[in-house]
């Protein structure tokens, strides 16, 4: 079977539905609605039209030779998901799930968010479709991504800072699941990544796979060949699966996911789930997980809120297990240097999340040499990260410059 034909609930040994019974009916309803929508040309046409006239699809590709000169002269091509409306790839998935929300007749949506990009996208779709919207966000993240909190509130969403546990993305997911268990009759959970219980990993992937389908054709047109490798950052893994998926059965194309290495994978402060974790159950699916000997989830760390997650989507765990994709860590420091390098050489400010893929691309270029072509998913733009970057590089007037 083609790797691209793999569907949930299981990806090899990974995936499934490890959820309270109270959620099973809602997951069944969502899965059935999605299965019908997949077969309905009208749903596909409506989503494609929203992509074209609202998101700005297809997103362009940009070759970045000045940046690539720091990667041993490999050709580096960026897939510009940062240019989407709302500033990242997250809108692709949200529009699909918002259309499904209308189909199943629910009037309220909830979402979790880390960096705030998925929350902003969900709040945007809620405004567009007239849905009530509540976004759960770890208190730590509401502080480091204050701009996105303001954006969500301006869009009419209620933003709930989550004070439990590590007060980051994993706790925001817990709180969103508690809300969903309580309000499932009226509420649809718009999940932001390819993790969680079935049908989310398959459905979110399907809404994101447009990234790779466009990019595969665009790179072929530009270079006359498929890329040597494809690089993407991996937190939960939605932008990575989105760009990988079209290439899964192109065996000659290497697929590389870059996890948040934080302060280093030999420290306790990282979010390199596949690199350092082992299989377990979190947030409704069996997948790789950062956990202690007792199965307690270990708090992750990344300078990037969007990658600061101790789990990963089950399809990535499967691709790692069968050797189709390789997952490597990139430290906070390497990501921040790559962020500044792309900004200074090409005038493109990437999100810190996406900067992990850029740092990975530099590493791959040095390994593969000047004859290689590296396709990088530039999954988001860096506007939201200005405070973090300004503090990191000492760009505010009252601080010493670097």
């Amino acid at each position: 079977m083609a790797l691209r034909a793999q569907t949930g609930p299981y990806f090899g040994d990974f995936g499934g539905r490890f959820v309270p019974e109270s959620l099973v009916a809602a997951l069944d309803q969502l899965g059935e609605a999605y299965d019908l929508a997949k077969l309905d040309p009208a749903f596909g046409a409506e989503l494609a039209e929203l992509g074209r006239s609202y998101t700005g699809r297809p997103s362009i590709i940009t070759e970045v030779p000045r940046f690539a000169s720091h990667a041993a002269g490999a050709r580096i091509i960026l897939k510009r998901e940062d240019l989407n409306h709302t500033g990242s790839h997250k809108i692709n998935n949200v529009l699909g799930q918002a259309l499904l929300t209308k189909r199943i007749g629910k009037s309220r949506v909830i979402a979790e968010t880390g960096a705030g990009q998925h929350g902003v996208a969900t709040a945007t779709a809620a405004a567009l479709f007239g849905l009530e919207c509540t976004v759960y966000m770890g208190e730590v993240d509401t502080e480091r991504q204050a701009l996105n909190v303001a954006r969500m509130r301006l869009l009419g969403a209620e933003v709930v800072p989550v004070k439990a546990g590590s007060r980051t993305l994993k706790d925001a997911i817990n709180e969103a699941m508690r809300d969903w268990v309580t309000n499932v009759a009226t509420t649809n959970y718009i999940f932001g990544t390819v993790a969680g219980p079935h049908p989310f990993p398959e459905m979110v992937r399907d809404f994101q796979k447009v990234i790779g389908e466009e990019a595969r054709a665009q790179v072929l047109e530009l270079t006359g060949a498929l890329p040597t490798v494809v690089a993407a950052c991996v937190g939960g893994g939605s932008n990575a699966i989105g760009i990988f998926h079209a290439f899964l059965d192109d065996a000659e194309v290497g697929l590389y996911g870059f996890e948040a290495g934080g302060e280093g994978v030999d420290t306790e402060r990282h979010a390199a789930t596949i690199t350092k974790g082992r299989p377990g159950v979190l947030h409704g699916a069996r997948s790789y997980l950062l956990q202690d000997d007792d199965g307690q989830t270990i708090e992750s760390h990344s300078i990037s809120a969007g990658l600061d997650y101790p789990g990963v989507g089950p399809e990535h765990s499967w691709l790692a297990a069968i050797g189709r994709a390789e997952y490597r860590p990139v430290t906070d420091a390497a990501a921040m240097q790559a962020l500044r390098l792309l900004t200074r050489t090409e005038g493109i400010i990437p999100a810190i999340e996406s900067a992990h893929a850029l740092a990975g691309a530099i590493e791959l270029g040095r390994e593969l040499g000047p004859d290689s072509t590296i396709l990088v998913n530039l999954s988001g733009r860096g506007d939201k990260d200005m405070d973090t970057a300004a503090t990191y590089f000492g760009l505010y007037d009252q601080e010493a410059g670097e």
Partner: protein
Amino acid sequence: MRTVAPVIARRNDEASGALIGYLPVGFPTFDESIEAAVAIVENGVDVLELGLPYSDPVMDGTVIQAATQQALAGGFRLADGFEAVRRITARVDAPVLIMTYWNPVVQYGVDRFADDLAAAGGAGLITPDLIPDEAADWIAASERTGLDRVFLAAPTSSDARLRLAVESSRGFVYTVSTMGITGARSDVDGAARTLVARLAEAGSPASCVGLGISTAAQVAEVLEYADGAIVGSALVKALAEGGVAAVGELAAELARGARRE
């Protein structure tokens, strides 16, 4: 092995049903959690539900979250759960079910967990985030060891899923009274009565109702139609605010709700 079905049957003969009490291991300290568990049994709780603290308790409200986070911060280890079962069953006769999220069991090893729980004198497991569809390993391990396995039924469960819960459970079916998470509520949802009736039609030998029950009057009301009433957050709150004496007093008060009028 002390299983729960005989106790629930006996309490439905001699009283209006069984009172099931939840407390987490390690809160406020390991030793006090043992004393509290013994105290609620001595004051009329028929079956103990002992919670293992977990980092990501998606079915729990703020009271139990706060208690289990404190237990984790205090150094709770999984092995403490077995030690707690050993100490409690040495002192009181009530069967002890462990309530645990699924990942700690997976990491410990499902068979090893079942063996160690049985050896400690435990009755079985309540698994809030494990549905029968994903439970083949646990069903096999509990068949082998004779442990009870309590799955959940929800107001939104289809008739087919209720039959699955009934066929997969042994001991009782945990009947979720309302759509939501743990925590005291002023009214126990009318959905519970309907769900218990649906479970009876699905062949359930015993259905115990949990979520939101905090007073003797609610216990009495639930036991009009259910085989057992499960109280959790109210006991944890009493323990947090008034210590072992207070949780014992609340258990005695709740037990009055289980007396036959």
